């Protein structure tokens, strides 16, 4: 499927700041399920800094903006050709040992209720089935409801609430998987919004679980499926904060506010773009 993405983030400062430094993880992952056709990232008045591929396989790009500046525009625009690999992250080059993803973080700490969601599962005999089961249980336990939770809500809090968004689903899945000894991580990316009325957000997040012999496999409890050709994978981390697409700090007293808009659309594959 050929997907086009337009992702615009606008930062406002109530008084001009002296400088801004950002670290982006804004390029689609390189693996068998994604082929980059075109991809541009621009930062208004920005100077491109150092860029590198990190141990998790994500492209990290530094940017700086010299102030005084009161508004910054980060624009991402591109096209990716995707293939459905049933969630399996095949052909992805990375060197962080899966063991690292057993480490707990604050939002992904499993309390008794989360641990209970893993009861009766046998990761040692069938890790893949276990991961599917966890995902299904999370889908049942946490209903999709935008606005019910916020950025700092933990997995345990979302489960107690019984409601949440994709971030909460992913955190909960990760917490349960890790409590069963399965390495799990948070994935940030984009999703083609469907016309079937199902709960979708163009800016999306899901989880990956490491299955011995198969590697990393994606699960999206928010949509009760594994990532397919509608998904564009960007980057991963231990939790949402660790996998953030844009991190930034401004030097100055200005208070920051921001506006984000993301559009993902399907395109016709023309003969030119397939070359």
């Amino acid at each position, binding site marked *: 499927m050929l997907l086009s993405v337009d992702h615009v983030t606008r930062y406002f400062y109530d008084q001009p700041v002296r400088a801004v430094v950002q670290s982006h993880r804004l390029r689609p992952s390189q693996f068998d399920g994604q082929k980059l056709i075109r991809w541009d990232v621009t930062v208004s008045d920005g100077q491109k*800094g150092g860029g590198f*591929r990190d141990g998790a396989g994500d492209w990290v790009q530094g940017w700086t903006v010299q102030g005084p500046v009161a508004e910054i525009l980060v624009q991402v625009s591109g096209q990716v050709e995707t293939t459905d690999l049933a969630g399996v992250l095949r052909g992805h080059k990375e060197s962080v*040992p899966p*063991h*690292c993803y057993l480490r707990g973080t604050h939002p992904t700490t499993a309390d008794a209720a989360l641990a209970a969601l893993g009861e009766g599962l046998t990761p040692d005999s069938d890790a893949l089935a276990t991961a599917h089961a966890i995902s299904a249980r999370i889908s049942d336990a946490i209903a999709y409801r935008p606005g019910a939770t916020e950025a700092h809500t933990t997995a345990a809090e979302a489960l107690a609430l019984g409601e949440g968004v994709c971030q909460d689903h992913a955190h909960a899945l990760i917490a349960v998987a890790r409590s069963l000894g399965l390495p799990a991580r948070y994935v940030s990316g984009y999703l083609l919004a469907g016309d079937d009325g199902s709960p979708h957000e163009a800016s999306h997040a899901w989880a990956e679980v490491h299955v011995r012999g198969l590697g990393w496999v994606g699960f999206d409890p928010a949509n009760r499926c594994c990532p397919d050709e509608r998904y564009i994978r960007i980057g991963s981390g231990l939790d949402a904060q660790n996998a953030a697409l844009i991190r930034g700090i401004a030097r100055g007293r200005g208070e920051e506010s921001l506006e984000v808009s993301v559009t993902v659309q399907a395109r016709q594959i023309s003969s030119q773009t397939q070359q």
Partner: protein
Amino acid sequence: MTDYFNEMYQGGKVREPYARLQGWMQSMPAELRHMKQAEAEALFRRIGITFAVYGEGGDPDRLIPFDMFPRVFSGAEWARLERGIKQRARALNAFLVDVYGRGEIVRAGRIPARLVYLNDAYEKAVVGFVPSKGVYSHIVGIDLVRTGPEDFFVLEDNCRTPSGVSYMLENREIMMRMFPDLFRENRIEPVDSYPEILRRTLASVAPQKCDREPTVVILTPGHYNSAYYEHSFLADMMGVELVEGQDLFVEGEFVFMRTTEGPRRVDVIYRRIDDDFIDPLCFRPDSMLGVPGLMDVYRSGGVSICSAPGAGVADDKAVYTYVPEMIRFYLGEEPILKNVPTWQCGKADDLKYVLAHLADLVVKEVHGSGGYGMLVGPKATAEQVEAFRARIIADPDNYIAQPTLALSTTPTFVEEGVAPRHVDLRPYCLVGERVELVPGGLTRVALTEGSLVVNSSQGGGVKDTWVLAE
């Protein structure tokens, strides 16, 4: 009663390295000694060498007690130590490059994966990165204790930013000033080349994108830090700027410092702040000490950070147990310096042993430092032992235990005259293009009679450490 090795006297005779100190000691009546001691203290205070004790408050301008009685090694003793220390520094660096690369030592089953990869000090953010010249730990401080003429044990390794080297240098300066005759009579190897070697070492690991004479700086958490004196001393001796996080900023692909003439590029940062605080974009977002964006510049080859972020995984007290294994694995050599036998409370069998022998053991927190969070079994009261037992049971992974070592003693000036006190040794090994070690180190002495805790934060003092020329 334990029989301690006295480094000066053996069987009623003076050991060779200390031969010329016997007369010196006897020629010093109490009044002269007191006068000299006061003179030394005034010198230290004048220079401004003071330190603040962690977590204690109190006088921020406290002096570390300085004992004038030197600690002496023969050239032959040192030669062996030097080989052992350099061997260890090389193996620790090989380990770091490996565990952030292919992890061969883990794959080979020589060290458990969880000990490395689930370690808090293991930085996921630097996986896959090889620092300039393949060096992670540029200053390796190795804490050694001695129990007999030939018996040295490594107590712990310090791969991040070991402190105390300014005392090594200042102790020598003050001794030379006060007792020039001693230096004429004994042939003592100099240590004053340390700052120059350190500067050369740091310059030798300039980043990939640096195509000129590298600009080196020392990054300090600030003037409230207890080791600020040392930071400023080293900057002065090396002739480099001492910067705080607020003095540095990232622009484009490089790091710059803010000067009165505008931005000036920085190539090598000898940081004296912890990983957690160096870049709020990458690590703790609430850190005010660091430089936003530093890690992106670092990983894209625009700046070198010494020690490299992530180096801490090699000096963890649980990983320590495996250092001899590292030496065999990476260097194909037998370790020259021994480890202290260590029980890991995280292992069921070890825990059982530790709990059964708590009163005879020294128990430490895996991530503790400075002598805090530590139980010295034989010196502790029954209540202290029981309280510690509860802490170990609550979180066994967090503790290791070692036998109480019979630390050697050296003569030390005390109120009544001269008496033996327990000592340890921290030499500072420099790793860059070359591996270098100045002949000397910091000798810490437990000034309280019978005490085995030498940490300055717990009433320890320091001594000048001599290595005699062969």
